[in-house]
Structure formats: structure tokens, C-alpha cells
């Protein structure tokens, strides 16, 4: 069972078969070796960390947080600028709208004035034409009444004559006139 290599390793802590006697952790023969190499390793790690790695990582982290802070500040500034620009744009839009409204109102007023003038002119013309027409109608009416009277007198006279009476112009006229009034 025991091999050559195991035999040579064998000491206080290892049996002839190469197995541990008791706990290897408690083997005093091996402790100085572990402690020595542990100290070497720890010192090496400490120098690597404190001289190279940690300052470098710390610097990178600081630089990054600085960059982020700067970027956030720049972004804030740009945002403010954008807000300003937007406000200016809104103002310009409002101004333009007000201007347009003003122009529209002025044009409307102008048109209203012109319209009023034209309407008055047209009204006057219409009134003139109406008066003219009324005069003509009155004339025609008067003429027609006169004609009716004449026709009635003549008819009456002719009727009286035809019935064998004597046509007294005066009497007939008076009668016709009285009837016309009736």
C-alpha cells in the first residue's frame, strides 16, 4: 500500500499510507510554512492593492462621478435653454395671432363702412323708384276713375234715350255722380 513517495513525505503528521494523522490543521510541523507564505502573499496583495489597484479604481470612480455631475449640469443648462426657446416661440405665436386678429378686425370694419354706404345708396334708389311708381299708379288710378265716370254718363244717357226719355245732361250727371259715391 505504501509507496515510495508517501514514505518520504511521511512525518509526524502523515502515516505510512500518505493519509493524515489527526487533523492536518493542527500539525505544528507545517505551520511555519503556511504562515511564511501567507505573510508573503498578504504583503504582495497589500502592495498591489494600495499602490496600484485601489488608487486607480478610486480615481476612476471619482472621475466618473465628476463626469456624471458635469453632464447632468450641462443637460440642465440645455434644458433651461430649450424651455427659454419654447417660451419665446409661444410668445411669438401669441403675437402673431393677435396681429392677425387686429388685421381681420380692421378689414371687417372697413368692409362694414363700405357696405353701409352702398346700402344707403341702394335704399335711396329704391325709395326714389318707389315714389316714382306710386305717382304713376296714382295718375293711372285718377285717369281710370275719370274714364269710368265718363263711360257711366254716356251709358246712362244712351239708356235714357233708348228708353224714349229726354236726356237731360244735368240730371244724369248728378245721378251718376250720386251713384258713384254710393
Amino acid at each position: 500500500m505504501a509507496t515510495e513517495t508517501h514514505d518520504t513525505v511521511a512525518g509526524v503528521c502523515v502515516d505510512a499510507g500518505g493519509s493524515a494523522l489527526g487533523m492536518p490543521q493542527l500539525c505544528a510541523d507545517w505551520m511555519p510554512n503556511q504562515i511564511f507564505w501567507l505573510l508573503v502573499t498578504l504583503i504582495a496583495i497589500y502592495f498591489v492593492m494600495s499602490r496600484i489597484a485601489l488608487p486607480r479604481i478610486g480615481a476612476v470612480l471619482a472621475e466618473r462621478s465628476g463626469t456624471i455631475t458635469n453632464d447632468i449640469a450641462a443637460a440642465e443648462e440645455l434644458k433651461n435653454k430649450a424651455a427659454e426657446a419654447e417660451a419665446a416661440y409661444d410668445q411669438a405665436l401669441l403675437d402673431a395671432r393677435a396681429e392677425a386678429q387686429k388685421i381681420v378686425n380692421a378689414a371687417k370694419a372697413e368692409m362694414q363702412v363700405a357696405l353701409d354706404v352702398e346700402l344707403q345708396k341702394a335704399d335711396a334708389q329704391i325709395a326714389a323708384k318707389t315714389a316714382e311708381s306710386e305717382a304713376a299708379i296714382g295718375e293711372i288710378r285718377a285717369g281710370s276713375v275719370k274714364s269710368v265716370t265718363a263711360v257711366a254718363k254716356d251709358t246712362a244717357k244712351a239708356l235714357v234715350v233708348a228708353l224714349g226719355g229726354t236726356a237731360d245732361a244735368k240730371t244724369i250727371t248728378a245721378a251718376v255722380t250720386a251713384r258713384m259715391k254710393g
Partner: protein
Amino acid sequence: MAEEKTGGLVFHPLDQFIVKPLFGDGAVSWYTPTNVTLWLGIALLCIVALFAIGSRGRAIVPTRVQSLGELAYGFIYKMVEDVCGKDGVKYFPYIMTLFVFILFSNYLALIPMSYSPTSMIAITAILGFGVFFAVTILGFVLNGPAFLGLFWMKDAPAILRPIIAVIEVISYFVRPVSHSIRLAGNIMAGHAVLKVFAGFAALTLVSPVAIVGIVAIYGLEILVCGIQAYVFTILTCVYLKDALHPAH
């Protein structure tokens, strides 16, 4: 050690912790390069790769390796700052050294056939007692005799103060022992249990159970490795805080 020739079942769960010389055979003297040296060296190389080489680019937008390093840096830095306060930050490199050493040793030990330095009581005792002596000396250097106020509870009733002081002193001196045995014990127990399950896997009848057991314990060990590194580091921070601000 239990060795059953009949079933071919061989249990040597502690053989994985044997210290062997790397080159040739012979006695292990204090300077001999051994398997301990090898795995400590591998841990050192991994730490250099992650923290020094990984951060070489000093990129504002980090690479994956660099962001891992930054993560560990931020994690420990915040821990030191939170526990010890602003004046504890100048001890951050020491605590970071402890943390990365324990973390990498623990996780590298999970590689099959590897060696686990943090399971050796000699190594964790050096770490634990190192922290203890450093913190105690630092406490006296910074505070002078006022450091002893750590043991004298001013808020306690006057009669109880001496009794509490005795308890406090005992608990103070137990600190390095518990500090180092906690780490070594956790890692050693985990690895020994893994080895026992692996021994059972040689039996055809129970090998499925044994293999499922190995997987489960391995998963648990992954947790334990991280947690033990974290616990060791945060306790170091707590002890350091006592040295910096001994008044309760």
C-alpha cells in the same frame, strides 16, 4: 481513519488538507514552496488580474472585469465608511486586502483538486490575531488609556459596571479566537463533508444520493465562502470602530 477494504470504501476526508512540497519530496520547512504556496500564489494572481490588470484601462465606461473590481471596491469602501465612520477610511486598503484575500482563497478552494488555505487554522489565526493586535495597538496609540473606557460601561448601573467590565474583557480576548476559528471551521467542515459524500459516491447503491448531496453541499459552500469573507471583513470593521471610538 475509517478504511473498509470490503466495499472499496475509503474515507480520508482530511487528506485534502495535507501540506505537500511542490518540487520533489522531503520535509516541509518554513520556506519550502508547497501546495499552500501554489494556491496562495494563484489567489494573488487572480487578485492582480481582477484589480490591477482589470482596471488598467481606467475607463470611464468600465469593461466587465473593471466593473467587477469597482463593485468590490465600492462594497468594501461603503462598509468601512458605514461601520467605522469617515476616519476609518484610511484603513480601507488593509481591510480590502483582507477581504479579497479571504474571498479569493475561499472561492479558489471550491475548484476540485485545489487546496484551501483559509481552512488552515494557522493561516486564519494569523489573520484573526493580526487584526486583534493591530486594533488593540491602534486603540492605545489613538486614545491612550482612554481606550480602556471600552470596557467600562458608563450607562450601566454603578454596581453592575465592574461585572460588565470583566465580561467585556473576556469577550474582547475571545474575539481573535472566534474570529479565526469561525473562518477555518466553516471552510474545513464544508470541504470535509464534500469529501465524505464523494467517498460514498463510490458505492453504486447510494451514489445518486451522494452525488445529489455533493451538488447541494457545493451550492451551500458557494454561499458560505462569500458569507465568511463578508463576516470576517465586517467584524474587522467593527473591531476597528472600537479602536477609533472606544466610548460606548
